[in-house]
Structure formats: structure tokens, C-alpha cells
């Protein structure tokens, strides 16, 4: 929900006593999520007599996660483990942009445009992309999907941009 993978994989940041950075950071992130969930459910009603309120279960699991996160963090200090894995920005970045582009264009522009755009942007995520074949495959896939989803499967998808339909 809010677990953005924002922790920079810079090894030098980690103090020496953290012997298993992967677990350490993972545990801290879980604790952060737990605190966030506890904060988010703090306005909900708790126990009413012996019956559960809306907030009881979220709080229960929130505290449980907080405890587990703390345990994992401790494990990260007392055990030996691998360094933080290296993150690459290119793949995640372009795939995310492609997904967002699809989400923002599907309503106003229709499926054909959204699918083509998302395909071409996602393709930027790999350094091996060759544009000629990518274009051909993009056209083929878009055609296939425009036949499969609205026609073969009967799902109500709008193919063309809204301004062209009017």
C-alpha cells in the first residue's frame, strides 16, 4: 500500500553493526507499514463490550506486524547476511511509466492508443530493444487484443478515442 521501494541501496549508509542489511531494512520497512496502518485505523471504533469494533482486527494485526518487523530487524543485527541487492532503475522506471500511461489514456483515448503507447514505453525498459521489430509486434498485439477482449470475450472496452466516436 505505502511500501514504496525508496530505500537507496547504498552500502556505506549502513553502520557496521548491521550485519544482515537485507533483513534489517526489510524489518524496518515492515515496522513502518505497521505504524502507518495503526495510524490509519486509529479513528476506528475499538472493542464494544465483548464484540469487535471495526478497528479491532486492523489494530491487532498492526501490532502483530510491528512485533514481527522488530524481530526481523533484530535478526538483521545479530546474524550475518548478504548485502542489499542492487536495484536497477531502467526496468522498473519504464514499466511503471508504461502502466501509468495506460491508466491515464485508456478512458479518453481508447484501448488501441493506450495499448500501443504502453507497449512502446515499456519496450524502453530493455537496452536490447530494436525498434523495427518492436513496432511490428506492438501493432500485432494491439490488433490481437482489440479482437480478443471486446469481441471474443465480450468485455465492454472502448477501442477508439472518445473524440472520434462523437
Amino acid at each position, binding site marked *: 500500500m505505502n511500501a514504496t521501494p525508496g530505500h537507496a541501496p547504498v552500502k556505506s549508509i549502513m553502520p557496521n553493526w548491521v550485519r544482515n542489511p537485507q533483513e534489517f531494512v526489510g524489518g524496518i520497512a515492515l515496522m513502518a507499514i505497521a505504524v502507518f496502518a495503526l495510524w490509519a485505523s486509529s479513528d476506528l471504533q475499538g472493542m464494544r463490550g465483548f464484540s*469487535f469494533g*471495526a478497528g479491532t*482486527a486492523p489494530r491487532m494485526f498492526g501490532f502483530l506486524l510491528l512485533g*514481527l518487523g522488530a524481530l526481523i530487524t533484530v535478526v538483521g543485527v545479530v546474524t550475518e547476511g548478504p548485502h542489499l*541487492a542492487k536495484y536497477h532503475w531502467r526496468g522498473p522506471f519504464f514499466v511503471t511509466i508504461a502502466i*501509468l500511461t495506460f491508466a491515464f489514456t485508456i478512458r479518453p483515448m481508447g484501448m488501441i492508443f493506450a495499448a500501443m503507447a504502453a*507497449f512502446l514505453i515499456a*519496450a524502453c525498459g530493455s537496452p536490447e530493444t530494436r525498434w523495427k521489430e518492436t513496432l511490428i509486434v506492438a501493432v500485432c498485439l494491439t490488433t490481437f487484443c482489440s479482437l480478443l477482449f471486446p469481441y471474443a470475450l465480450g468485455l465492454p472496452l472502448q477501442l477508439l478515442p472518445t473524440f472520434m466516436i462523437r
Partner: protein
Amino acid sequence: MGDIFTNLGLGFGVVFQFVQWTPAFLGGISIPIPVNILLCLIGALVGTLVGVLPGIGTIATVAMLLPITFGLPPVGALIMLAGIYYGAQYGGSTTSILVNIPGEAGSVVTALDGFQMAKRGRAGPALAIAAIGSFFAGCVATVLIALLGAPLTRIALAFGPAEYFSLMVLGLIFAVVLAKGSVLKAIAMIVLGLLLSMVGSDIETGASRMAFNIPELADGLGFATLAMGLFGFAEIIRNLDAGGETDRKLVQEKVSGLMPTRRDLKETTPAILRGTVLGSILGILPGGGAVIASFAAYTLEKKVAKDPSKFGHGEIRGVAAPESANNAAAQTSFIPLLTLGIPPNAVMALMVGAMTIHGIVPGPQVMQKQPDLVWGMIASMWVGNLMLLIINLPLVGIWVRLLRVPYRLMFPSIVVFCCIGIYSVNNAPTDVMIAGAFGLVGYWLIKHDFEPAPLLLGMVLGPLMEENLRRALLISRGDWSVFLTRPLSAVLMAIAAALLILAVLPSLRKKRDEVFVESEN
């Protein structure tokens, strides 16, 4: 006994149902079409097609293909999904034999000996024995489901909320113990899943929980959305990291001589039998399902073999046993889902998601109220296995060609396909964005060695667990000891506690890790 035959008869009746199709262009002539058989066939084919693509596991395949079944009637949709599941599994073993890239965790061990066989020009017999073993295991598992279905349902109907809650706790603990990796981290993932399942409106009071007044979150996080993000998008991003084009050495020799020799068959028969038994047992247990079954079967074969040194160098028994085991387990894992309504692993969790979308609440009631659905699905499993045997062997050539599709073309296609699929569930662009966010979360989880599968399980079981916990405590007037004073519940809780203690004991942990380490040597 008679019951079973009646039930299976009903099931096969559903599968072989013909629907009259009267197209306008034929001028009123109607053609009978075996709809469910066709759906099973399409499911198995599409499942294999996607499962063959390297880097896409079974869970990702089923998640990706979920939306295409939404338009179908419930029985057809579930039959097709089951077909997709077996197809994906079979596709996974094909890639591990031919390219040494296991498409899914369950076929990691198949790659050990399967790929060695392929290198020696024996890819044909390896594929054939995998298919034959799977088919045999599938037959046995189908009968087992039919045998256990009715009695287990009767037990389940006697369960109260306290028993249900304890059973789910036991199931989750099993999932943790039988899974790979750290027990602590797996539990944390389950709890995170449980927390995520709380987003949306509360079942009893209707209060909005952790939704921040975002209308799209009011109904909770979509299950298919989350699964596609965590498994579809995250896998793509991870594969891009690893460099999609590396080590994809395809076996270039032509796959010829499909049939195994008489000696192969004689050697593998006991292995298939052992694999089937082991797989069936492990499949019923909640947790690992197919994955642990194939690892355990391989380890067992190595233990009982006269000359264990042959394993890892193209020993046909090393293909037969795990393949039979993983298929048997894949199928018997339907038992807890259909009888108790509790998904034992992530794929079954997806099945629950699919059933809920069709308005079916899995559990013992389904078996009674919609017997055609349950038995139709069980019968379709057998038919699906038969189809895999018939379709896949002749089509191996096509699957091999698919393997040559470069990743640089494949991954944008998967991204687009997933986007359209997620969007089509609710026609909601926000769902696509949420899935994208979970793709990043999944990537981060993989990087920190957290398994996303338990998260999915927690997410599905969350509402069920909360509901039963609340009811149990309401009935007991807030007395928490109810879980220990009701005998059945106490037994379940005791087993759960014992398992958890065993799992953290160093000696057993070493044993468990040994089973999984097999693949890395």
C-alpha cells in the same frame, strides 16, 4: 461407494454437456457443441502457451489469464481456470527440460535431470515420461478427491466459527513451514496480507477502514489486481534486472524419438507410483503444494536409488518422480478448497478470487448447493489431464519455437496484456495504477527475500479469519479460551503450535532446507 460413482457421473455429465448452437448464417440448423470440453481444451492450451514462456510462473500465468474467464458462466469459468492451471504446470516442465529455465518453482527439480537428458538427445523421452507420469498422478488424484470430498464436507459442516478460525491458523502455519526461506519472514508476509485485506469497508459495521476516502478503495483492494501486480508486473521488472537474454541456451537438436524405451518405462513405474503417493499427501496439506511435493519426491528417489550418483546426470527417474508428484499435489490441493473453503496455496487463493467474482463462496455449502459445479470441476481435472497428454506431445515443436521469442518482445506484450486484463475487471483505471504500485512493492519484496505467495494467502484468508474470529468471540461472550476449550479447535491449535515449534528447531530446519537446497547444487 455408490455415492462416489453417482457424483463422478454427475461431474462427467456436466463436462460432456452439449449446448445447441444455432448460428444465423446456417439458417436455423443447430450444431451441438461440447462447451465445457472446449473450455477445458482452450484453458489447457492457453495455460501451456503462457506457462512455457520463461520467467512466468504458474501463479503469474493464472493471475494474468483470470480476466479472460470473467465473461463465462461460473462452471465454464472454473473448468477453464483449472485447465489453465494444469497447462501452466505442464508448460513449466517443458521449459525446464528443454532450456533449463524452470517456468515455475515446482519444476526446478525437473530441470536437474530433464535438461541433462535433453542435452543427450533424450528430450523426447523426458517430455513423454513427464506427461505420462503427470497423467497417471492426475488420475489417482481425481479419484482421491472424489473419495475424500463428501466425508470431509460432512466434517466441515460440523465446524463452528472457533474451529474454522483454528483451522485457518493451522493452514497458515503449514504454509509457512512448508514454504522455502525464513519462517519469520513468511509469517510477516501473511500478517501484511491480512492487514491489506482489511482495507475497505468493514463487513459488520460498514465503517470505512484505511481507505482514506478514496472511492476506489472503499470496496477494498481488488484481489486480481493485487495478484497481477505482485506476480505479473513484479516478475517482469525482476527479469529485466537479471537481463532477459542471458543463458537461454536452447537445446538445438531436434526433438525426435518421443517414445520412451521399454526399459525407461520399467525403471520409472515405481518412481511414478512413489511420486504420486507423496504428492497426493503433500498436496492435501495446506502450504507448499506442488513445490514441496516435487522437491520431496526427488529427494526420496535419490534416497531409495541403488546408485544415487546418477541423479543430476540425466536419470529418467529424476524426471518421472517429481513430475508425478507435482501434478498429484496440484490436484489434491483442490481438496481443502472445495471441501473446507480454505485455499491451501497461492494458486488456490486465486481460484477463491475467481469464485468470489462469480458470486460463489467456496466452502462446504458449495458441495451441497451446487454439486454440478464441484463435481464438474473434478471431472474436468481428469479430462484436462488427458488433454494435456494428447495435445502436448505432438505440439512440443510449437512450444520449442515459442521459447525462441526474445524477452525484449515478450515483456512489453505481457505488460500491455496485464494492463488490459486488470482494467477490464472493473473498467477502472485506478486498478491499473494500484497493480503498478504493487508491482514495485513485489520487486522490493523479491529484493529483500520476502516471498509474495504467503502475502496473497493472507489477503484471501483475511476476511474469513476476521469474520470467524468475531463470531467465535461473540458466541463465547468475549472469552478467548474458546479456541482451547472446544476439543476440535484445541487439537487444531495444538498441531499448529507444535508445527511452529518444530519449524524453528534447528535440526528440523536443516532437514527442510536440505530438501530445497537440492536445486542449487
